[in-house]
Structure formats: structure tokens, C-alpha cells
């Protein structure tokens, strides 16, 4: 009843509304052009042209199956063996969606943290040193220093500094997720992609994680997929709303939440569906 009333009242609402960020203080660091993602013949992303501002947090929201995670995973080519991604992904002027791109070097610059905390069955120290050692860093002092700064940036240092050699599997969910963030930033990426990083965490851990992300914004450009509307509202500058593989609305977070221009966005952020 409610829903149909709303629909009839707001007939003037737009079908799609995309405002790319233009703040000169935060130039575009990553953008997608004509991006399409296919699983076999099924198109998962059909309209997803977005520009991401540097040193800002951009939230990707939308109902389950709307393609936001698929979109995020395409950005650092994690979909390579799973899906077909066409179009351009411009990172600082270079199209990283080309076959001759060294995806391993690219992923060092575009790091990723997953929904489920996924530390390796190694010690806390070795988890963070993993990617560094792969890159040939063996100097103990250098490793020590990077492990410490990464853990500090992820706000985990004070809790684990005496237990660096203990198994990472003994950490709580929130700690494990922050270890994963520390592990991702140990290789000093430019961009951090987070795929619902707080969905497996309790409210206290979630709020700590959000504080951490707000701190990390100074050093990294963050793109975060979230199911949690309040979370997007609390931490992000820009929000993109996905539905059925399309970006229906993209604007500053305050606009999306207070004055959405698309009916479905309005329904979604006010909790009427999704």
C-alpha cells in the first residue's frame, strides 16, 4: 500500500542519475569506461561507469545480486578466471583491463580485503610479511618496520605486539579482519578495495573498523561494498547505488541519502526493499 502510494506521488523522479565527483582537491584516481562483466553469456554488469576520487571513501550499495561485488572484484582483475570483463579500467591514466598488464604488480597497487576475514594459517608476522617476501624483501629490519607500521595503521598493533609469532587463526573476527587490512596495506597500495569487510563482525568491531578506515583515507583511496546503509552514511564521501547490474545513482553520500533522485534508490535507502 505504502509503496504504491509513493510511486504515484513521485512520478517526476528520474530513471538514472549519475554525478561524477569533481572536487579538484581529490582528483580521479580510478575510473571505469564502458565496463561490462559477463558470467558466460549472462551479463552481470551492463552500466557501471564510475570515477573514484583519490583519498576519499566511495561506498557501493545495492540489493543482493545487484552486481556491486562483481564490479569491485573486476577493478583489480580478481574476476579474470571467473568472468569476462570488457571496457576500460583507467588507473592513473593507464587502462589496467588490458591483456598485457602485469596483474600481480597491479594488485600490489590495488589491494583488496574480503568479506570473510581470511588470514593464512601462519603467524601474525608471517601473514603481513607474506606479500613482502614474495617481492624479495628479506631484510629483517625492513620487515619488522613494515609489519609494525601496517599493524599500527590498521589499529591492531597494541593488541598483538607481544603475540606476533602466534597463529593468526587465534585472532577474533574483528582482529582478523584488521590483520587482513594490515596485510593488504603492507605492500603500500594506492587503492584499497573492501568487499563488505564488516558483514561478519559484531557492532563493536564494526565501529572500530570504520574508525580505522577513516584514518586510512589519508593514505589510500578506498572503495567499499557494504550492505549496511548506516555504514555507508557514516564513512563515505560518495555513494553509488547498484541495481540489476547497473549503477542507477551516483553522487555525494549526503545527496544519495537525503535527496535521492531515483525512485528505487529512495526506496532502498529508506529501507522499503532490499
Amino acid at each position, binding site marked *: 500500500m505504502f509503496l504504491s502510494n509513493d510511486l504515484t506521488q513521485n512520478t517526476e523522479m528520474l530513471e538514472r542519475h549519475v554525478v561524477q565527483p569533481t572536487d579538484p582537491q581529490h582528483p580521479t584516481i580510478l575510473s571505469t569506461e564502458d565496463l561490462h562483466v559477463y558470467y558466460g553469456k549472462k551479463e552481470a554488469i551492463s552500466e557501471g561507469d564510475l570515477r573514484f576520487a583519490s583519498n576519499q571513501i566511495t561506498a557501493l550499495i545495492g540489493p543482493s545480486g545487484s552486481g556491486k561485488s562483481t564490479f569491485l572484484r573486476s577493478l583489480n582483475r*580478481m574476476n579474470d578466471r571467473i568472468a569476462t570483463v570488457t571496457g576500460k579500467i583507467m588507473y592513473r591514466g593507464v587502462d589496467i583491463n588490458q591483456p598485457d598488464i602485469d596483474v600481480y604488480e597491479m*594488485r600490489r597497487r590495488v589491494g583488496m*580485503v*574480503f568479506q*570473510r576475514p*581470511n588470514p*593464512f*594459517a601462519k603467524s601474525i608476522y608471517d601473514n603481513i610479511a607474506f606479500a613482502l617476501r614474495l617481492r624479495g624483501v628479506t631484510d629483517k629490519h625492513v620487515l619488522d618496520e613494515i609489519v609494525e607500521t601496517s599493524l599500527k595503521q590498521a589499529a591492531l598493533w597494541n593488541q598483538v605486539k607481544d603475540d606476533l609469532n602466534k597463529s593468526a587463526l587465534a585472532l577474533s573476527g574483528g582482529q582478523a579482519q584488521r590483520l587482513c587490512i594490515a596485510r*593488504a596495506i603492507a605492500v603500500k597500495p594506492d587503492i584499497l578495495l573492501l568487499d563488505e569487510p564488516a558483514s561478519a563482525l559484531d557492532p563493536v568491531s564494526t565501529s572500530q573498523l570504520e574508525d580505522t578506515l577513516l584514518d586510512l583515507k589519508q593514505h589510500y583511496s578506498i572503495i567499499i561494498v557494504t550492505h549496511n546503509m548506516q555504514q555507508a552514511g557514516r564513512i563515505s564521501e560518495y555513494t553509488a547505488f547498484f541495481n540489476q547490474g547497473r549503477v542507477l545513482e551516483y553522487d555525494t553520500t549526503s545527496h544519495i541519502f537525503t535527496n535521492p533522485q531515483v525512485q528505487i534508490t529512495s526506496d532502498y535507502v529508506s529501507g522499503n526493499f532490499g
Partner: protein
Amino acid sequence: MKTTEQLEHQLKRHSKAAKLEIWGKFISFSALLLIVAVVVAIIGFVASKGLATFFSNHVSLWDFLSGKSWNPGVTDAHGKPEVGALPMIVGSFLITVLSAIVATPFAIGTAVFMNEISPNKGAKILQPVTELLVGIPSVVYGFIGLSVVVPVTRAIFGGSGFGILSGTCVLFVMILPTVTSMSVDALRAVPRYYREASLALGATQWQTIYKVVLRAATPGMMTAVVFGMARAFGEALAVQMVIGNAALMPGSLVDPASTLTSVLTTGIGNTVMGSLQNNALWSLALVLLLMSLVFNLIIRLIGRKGRLQ
């Protein structure tokens, strides 16, 4: 009041479903009981026969385990029967360990290819091939060994061609599918998010396989290898056809030798029940059985350790 009684009657009555439940439990429990009884009977029978050598025929356990001469019908200069099983024990262990050492790298390589590098081709081509290898009867392996492996060994190393080397070659092919398919299972059990975490950190696929997936799959891989060894240790027919069946300490890998199983299969039809010759063979069977139990124990221990990690 009446409704309460009715309800009580309905609730207490043994319905058809409840009776079926009892039947089901009874049937599955009796099946279990039967299997346990069979296992206990086998162990008891082999043990009673095998221990007779030591209790009825008064052979000392040490002579049996360390003696190098096997000829149960003959007594030596001291009047003791020649029942030294060491050549067979050494032969069995040597052939088992060697075939496992040769098979493991191939099995792991194949499993990695099937599960990590090319899952599609792995499923389409290699899976049926390994399953086919499992299904080939051991006498066919033995026959191929006899007509191909033995002549080749003879041509290269001289001698008769029969021996531990030929046995290892045949067993290598026989245990390869077992170890491979169990290694594939071990790799499959490694959670996908381990691989994703590694790849997202910029590790290459090979680095991911080597540093993350294989590490996590190590307990499962070890179980696979021990399973293969158990199979190699117990294989009789194919080994018997190519090893030469000389109950001597193997001087080299191309000298004719024998294993516990090959001596058993060649000898058991030619002895009289209750005689020393017969009992001595049962003692070999007991050693074989105990070793199988040890292999099982090792597999369990590895499995438990893997779970704790």
C-alpha cells in the same frame, strides 16, 4: 478427561514410524556388529596362527625378525629351523618406500594441474584416466611388468631383470592414481579464500600454489602418500610377477628379491596346515597385518594433526 486419555494413548502408542525407526537402528547396528566381528575374527585367526611359530615351534621372535635365511623346511647347524624373515621385511619396505618416493612428485604435480592450473581439462581428461588406472586388475599390471619392464631392466642393468627396481616401476604406476586422487581431494579442501587472499596480495598463481595451497594441503597430501604406501605394501600379485621371488637379502635393486606378500602367495599352497612351514607363513601374514594397522594409525594421526591446525 477423555481427551487427556486419548492424547496419552496417541502419544504413547508405537506408531508405524516408531517401529520403522527401531528396525532401522537394529539393521544398521547388526551390520556394524557383523563387520566388527569379521575384523576381530581375522585378526584373531591370523594372530593365533602366526604366533604358533613362536609358541608351538619355539622359534625366537628375534631369530624370526633378524634372520637372513628363509627355508622353513630346513634346520641350520644349530638345529634351529631357518625362518629368518628379514629379507622379506626389507624387500617389502624398500619397494614400498621407493615406489612412494617416485610416485609422490608425479601425483602432486598431476593433482596441482587438475585442481589449480586447468580444472576443466583436469576434470575432462585426467579424472577419467586416473579412475581407469585404479580399475585395472593387478594381474594386468604384473603381466605388463613381466613383458615390458623386466626385459627393459634386463637390457639396461643386466642380470635377470627381476628385482626391486622392476617391482618399484610397476607399483609406481599402481599407486599413482590412488595418491593423485587423494591429493586432489586434499587440494580441494583448501578454502577458496586462501587463494583469493594470496592473489589479491599480488602473488602469482605459482606463488599461491607453492606458498599457500600446498602448505595448507600438506596433512592431506601426507595422508595420500601413506595410503599409497599401504597399497604398495599389501600388493601381492603384480609384485610377485616381477620381483624374482628369491628369499635373499637384496644386494642391489636389480637382484631377485621377495616381499612378505610374494612369499605368502607363492608358498601358502605348498605347505601343510599346522606344520612349521605353514605357521611361518602365517607369521609373515601377521607382520603384514600389523604393518597395515600401523599405516592406518599414521593416517589417523596425520588427520588429527591436520584438524588441530
